[in-house]
């Protein structure tokens, strides 16, 4: 059960009543429903603020997983142009990954995206956005293409994690993810990642090593699902909400930890309440980030990327308890 969908039910009821009243007042212009409509609209606005004004980590987990949340295809559709390129050249085309070449407000880019479905039928075809090794190997092939033709890489992250199945293990899920991560640490073009929904563990990170990381306001990026974390560390799946808070998986938490660079605000009520506005905001941020990265000489870009990852995580020394590192 999605806690956001549950909370939205009251809003949708109000929306329905407002719509009905408006229709009624058109049919009967002699009767005035203006005062009632205004009262309902005020109630709607205040309920909306109450529900969405200050989402908890657990609510953000559910917002990130909202069935109506815009998928990567929503953002790709807004590019000036896009040609999808299929397949890993070895086994099959993984529908959980969309890759291709495109143009973002005039800038040539290579797109790599994890794609969940928008309905049950698409979710079955896309494996709920859970990528198989061949999906990562398609990504790896396209990273090399990007390097060869100097195309900045723009990724969209939205997966609960890499596929945990027999075929995935038989075909080397670990190796496929490892190669993607390594390639992104060294690829000689700018890399810009955007977490648009769920960033789940190593399967998300395979497309998430980047010069800049953007997160949509209510997206999450986590080492494990809160449910999985609760089951392992508390041995109690009921602790998922507490795990969500403790994991520090929201954009603002991760910006605080120095891992995420930009947060793109979502419309009140979440990205799905106004997909066009969300798409426009993210594309604008991507365009300006790409321009900033394009200003850097390549060697400096690569040095900065190296230094950025080299710095993540701090320690103390046993002898002097001296605190080193950045976070």
């Amino acid at each position: 059960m999605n806690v956001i969908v549950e909370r939205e039910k009251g809003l949708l009821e109000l929306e329905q009543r407002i719509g009905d009243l408006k229709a009624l007042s058109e049919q009967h212009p002699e009767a005035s429903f203006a005062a009632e409509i205004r009262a309902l609209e005020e109630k709607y606005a205040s309920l909306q603020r109450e529900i969405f004004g200050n989402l908890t980590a657990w609510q953000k987990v559910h917002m990130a997983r909202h069935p109506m949340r815009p998928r990567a295809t929503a953002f790709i559709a807004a590019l000036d142009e896009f040609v999808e390129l299929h397949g890993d050249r070895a086994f099959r085309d993984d529908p959980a990954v969309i890759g291709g070449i495109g143009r973002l407000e005039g800038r040539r880019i290579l797109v790599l995206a994890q794609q969940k479905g928008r309905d049950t039928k698409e979710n079955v075809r896309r494996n709920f956005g859970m990528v198989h090794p061949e999906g990562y190997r398609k990504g790896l092939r396209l990273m090399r293409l990007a390097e060869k033709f100097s195309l900045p890489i723009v990724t969209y992250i939205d997966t609960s994690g890499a596929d945990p199945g027999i075929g995935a293990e038989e075909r080397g899920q670990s190796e496929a993810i490892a190669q993607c991560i390594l390639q992104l640490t060294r690829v000689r073009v700018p890399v810009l990642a955007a977490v648009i929904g769920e960033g789940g563990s190593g399967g998300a990170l395979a497309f998430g090593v980047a010069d800049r990381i953007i997160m949509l306001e209510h997206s999450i990026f986590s080492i494990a699902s809160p449910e999985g974390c609760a089951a392992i560390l508390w041995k109690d799946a009921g602790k998922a909400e507490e795990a969500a808070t403790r994991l520090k998986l929201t954009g603002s938490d991760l910006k605080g930890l120095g891992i995420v660079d930009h947060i793109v605000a979502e419309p009140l009520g979440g990205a799905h309440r106004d997909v066009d506005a969300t798409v426009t905001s993210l594309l604008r941020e991507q365009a300006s980030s790409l321009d900033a990265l394009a200003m850097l000489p390549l060697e400096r870009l690569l040095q900065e990327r190296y230094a950025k990852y080299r710095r993540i995580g701090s320690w103390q020394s046993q002898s002097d308890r001296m605190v080193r590192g950045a976070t």
Partner: protein
Amino acid sequence: MPSVADWLRGRKRQIERREPGLWVKCPGCSETLYRKDLELNLLVCGRCGHHFRMPAADRIVSLIDGEFHEIAADLEPRDPLQWTDVKTYPQKLAADREKSGAVEAVIAGFGSMGGIEIGLAVMDFFFRGGTMGAVVGEKIALLFEESARRRVPAIVCTASGGARMEEGLVALMQMAKTSAALTRLQDARLPYICVLTDPTTGGVSASFAFDADVIVAEPKAVVGFAGRRVIEQTIRQRLPDDFQTAEFLIEHGHVDLIVDRHQLKAQLVQVLSMLLPGTGAGVPA
């Protein structure tokens, strides 16, 4: 110069403390084994060949010739998320230190193996399940960078349940940190060999472990991305016993060699001696 034995004396002798006592029951053949005999036999069952999990310090002694110079030995984790579940993260770390005698889940350093200078990191499953947090990530990254600087090959023996949950995304990002550092070794065209030992899963198998030039596995070692239980819950069926074992991996083309622990050192030396031009002294700059 400290010998391996001196170095080891400086640390507490690490033995498998989860089953203390003189006698150990072999999970492979159910035979009751005398612990001393087992240790003299590199923790391999003399009857059925079962490879017991090996503490990092014992592994280093089994591979290094004379002296071992540990690097970054005194790094201790901080608590980036101020983590608490049923215990706090610092409490768990203290308990593991006490129980395992190790200070973290990896030991890294330099020494010679069969006359070849190498960088060696060995992970320790007895400390936090060998999980990778910022300290493990840092030590592995330092090993790759320092091996590149010294122009010597690197060997990592893995044993890990993956990225360390208590350090959250900071731990996950160590996958990127170690991979970035590995590119330094690759650019220097120096060999990197990974020895997969039981068990190696998650964030370690999906980062530097499977990026190696040559990948060796110990017999029957369980290696995979997802844990067995997670897969069984997902597909709602029982997996075959050999699933994700070294033998399964070599059949599917994911590892180069399965090597018995008694032959490991000789096999690594042989491979390195052929990958390196010149004999045993590293690569000239």
